[in-house]
């Protein structure tokens, strides 16, 4: 593996898991968010070799046995998805939040999602979806 290969390139080009998106390539938009050892990272800023021996979770792992997770269902039902390009990163940021903090306050949800840019939805439905997933997970 080339030393300069990013985790994003590894996931998309080597593993062909194209759910993870590139929106800016400099860690500013959050579209490439994945969980590395359970924590959200922007995969464009992490070298693939840094993930050696660690666990990487992408959006493709969120649904289990063909069933959408509660978080995914909430995104579908609240209208949190429009063009969908930011959605995988949003889902992974939300998953990271709910894993470390299953009972987030509204401010904590906003803080956790503020690094993920969306140009379509105006965020309201996205924040609502995370709230619903948090409440349902209790």
């Amino acid at each position: 593996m080339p030393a300069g290969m990013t985790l994003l390139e590894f996931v998309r080009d080597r593993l062909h898991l194209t759910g993870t998106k590139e929106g800016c390539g400099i860690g500013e938009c959050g579209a490439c968010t994945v969980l590395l050892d359970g924590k959200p990272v922007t995969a464009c800023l992490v070298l693939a070799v840094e993930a050696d021996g660690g666990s990487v979770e992408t959006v493709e792992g969120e649904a289990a046995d063909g069933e959408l997770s509660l978080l995914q269902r909430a995104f579908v039902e609240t209208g949190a998805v429009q063009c969908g390009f930011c959605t995988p990163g949003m889902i992974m940021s939300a998953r990271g939040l709910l894993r470390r903090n299953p009972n987030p306050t509204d401010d904590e949800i906003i803080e956790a999602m503020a690094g993920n840019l969306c140009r379509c939805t105006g965020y309201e439905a996205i924040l609502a979806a995370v709230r619903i997933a948090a409440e349902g997970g209790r």
Partner: protein
Amino acid sequence: MIPRELRVVGTPVVREDAVDKVTGAARYTTDLLLPGMLHAAILTSPHASARIVRIDTELARAVPGVRAVLTGADLDVRLGLYLRDKRILARDVVRYQGEAVAAVAADTLDAARTACRLLRVEYEELPAVFDPRKAVEPGALLVHPDLGSYDHMRGVFFPKPGSNVAHHQKIRKGDAAAALAASDVRIEASFDNPPVQHVPMETHAAIAQALTGGRAEIWTSSQSPYTVRHLLALAFGLSHAAVRVHVPYVGGGFGGKAGLGLEPLAYVLSKACGGRPVQVSMSREEEFNTIPSRQGLYSTIRLGASRDARLTALEATYTWDAGAYADYGVNVGRAAAYSGAGPYALEHCSIDSYVVYTNKVYGTAYRGFGHLEVLWGVERAIDQMARALDLDPVEFRKRNLLKEGDTTITGEAFTAGHGKPIECLEAAAKAIEWGQPSAPPSDARKVRGKGVAMLHKAPAMPTYTSCAAILKLDEDGAADVLVSGVDYGQGTYTVLRQIAAEELGIPVEKVHVTWECDTAMTPYDWQTVASRFAYMGGNAVIEAAADCLNQLRAVASQALAVPVERLVCDNETVFPVGEPQRAIPYRALALGYTFANGNSIGGPVIGHGRFIATGLTNLDPETGQGRPAQFWTYGAHAVEIEVDTETGEIEVLKIATALDAGKVLNPLLCRGQVIGGIVQGLGSALHEGFRFDDKGRLLNPSFVDYKIPTAKDLPREIVPILLENPQPGGPYGARGVAEHPMISVPSAIGNALYDALGIEFTSLPLSPERVLEGICAAGTPRAQLA
């Protein structure tokens, strides 16, 4: 037959595509991996205006994996939507910093980028012009000295050879100069908007494969599959059938992916590589620097009014900063001119809209199509006039808004079918308790203010705009909808599912829109712009469903031995009136009906529907009079803000947006459009704008320096209000509402800012720096403001 009540249309059906989007299964252009596909990179100009003396490609060609290097010298093609003024790669001269001058296709993106870095370009810098107000002056340096020789759409656009004016749109109604001179009260004010970027989260991308026999196959992140096909066919002398354009999922467009984008470059690179597929995709920095933006605008507006608060005249000059190429900019200058007086009844109006070339990144369509920009001026000037008359701004607007019996500034009669702008204003104003003082601010250094603004827009489209829909019934009685309008996030496919389900009388779960437009498979649609897809596509689907029902009834008539006119279609069945027990299910008719003895009749049921714009005219070149609009959508925003007088920061406490949607086809999706549009409008109002240095270099081409709203930037409260005064030609009375929520958000905030501070801000964005500078310049002690 008595029309039954709507069952599916008007309900909050969730979008089917959301499932593939939350799992990562939705495939966008750069997710596609074609056998043998190469990757391309571009080299862009560091200069805003320069002669290309020579390009040395030798080192680049030697990079392992490089398959082709192209420069403008290799490509003698001129492209353009309305005015053919642009090369695929700059040839002889560059006209903006960021313009592509060379491209490399290679086995890997790394190799292509490495090769680009090894290209040696010798430039001779040339003088440049950056301010459109200077560029329009006689004797100004010409961005396109050959303007007179360019092909353009005649009778609609009027470039002025020997100048930088790519289009001059005139609107003349009555005698504005005389009416203004005779007015009791006159005001004059100037406003400006910077260029901004669309910022779709998915940058532009295209894959092309040049096939033998003069054929081309394209996969592209586009709003316009058929326009891409048409313009590629024209540019390269191919037949239309030889160009096949696929549009997979598209990650946002907002107008920036309309027309033609990277497809020609991908095609010529593929040709140069022996027909291997080539992918071209923009980095985010290239998206800012190279891909067209929203044009900047300088406005000067003169308003006259009588002492009894009637608007008597409007004169306006709109000077658009088109940048280096005309693209959609000329049509923005045209459409925003016929909307350029706001939704007001005016007997006398004179507007000159100049679309002016400069040496900057060029402009194109962006959500609102020039209306946010012109209404930034008009709606601020209306507030100034209300103050000059010492009248409440809501009351002043109500006296002058268009109502039945009035005519627009192009002479179109305003009818009940246009909707009710006054109701929109009243509803929005009420939602923020207009007329009541604001609650005390949260901090002693903060002040609060309220403001309103109107908006209006019609689709800007050719008089002959058309589209079609195909509906196929499956053997299980489900239906597939085929269209070539693109759902790049708006949700239109969900609305079309609802319409098909409603008309066919089947559950919405049994209707699917085929995702991926393909010009070889899905029927014609002009392009997905102008907030006209639900309107036109919806009408086409209604007609296609009627065609299916006629086919079903014709076969059922023979099967049941009942005349066609005595048959009813509902609940997935056809049955004689009053005899549902004799029903034949659609699934027994969808591929043809088989009698007990094996005889069969009918065949696969495939319905076809279409829609074409009706009654539109080209505008008179001298007066702009005519009918440009299939329908109009009106609306109003009302906002309450809090301003920090120490930092200049504006917080939006509440924004209420009322739109006359005619009919809300899906309340969940409509709300999503409205909220998304408002927040995008807040970006234009508060944060966004290109900054250039004195050499015309863009200073903020990244998310580090160009901020769009985040989840932290939401107003405390957003109140969408959707009125339903029907549009007679729309599906179920619906109008388009996709672009509208964004328009006039800056105007309402600017008016609220005046209310809060008593300071007139005329430039966007209303960034903390600008607001604070304004506070300091006004010299009012901050304590007094607060």
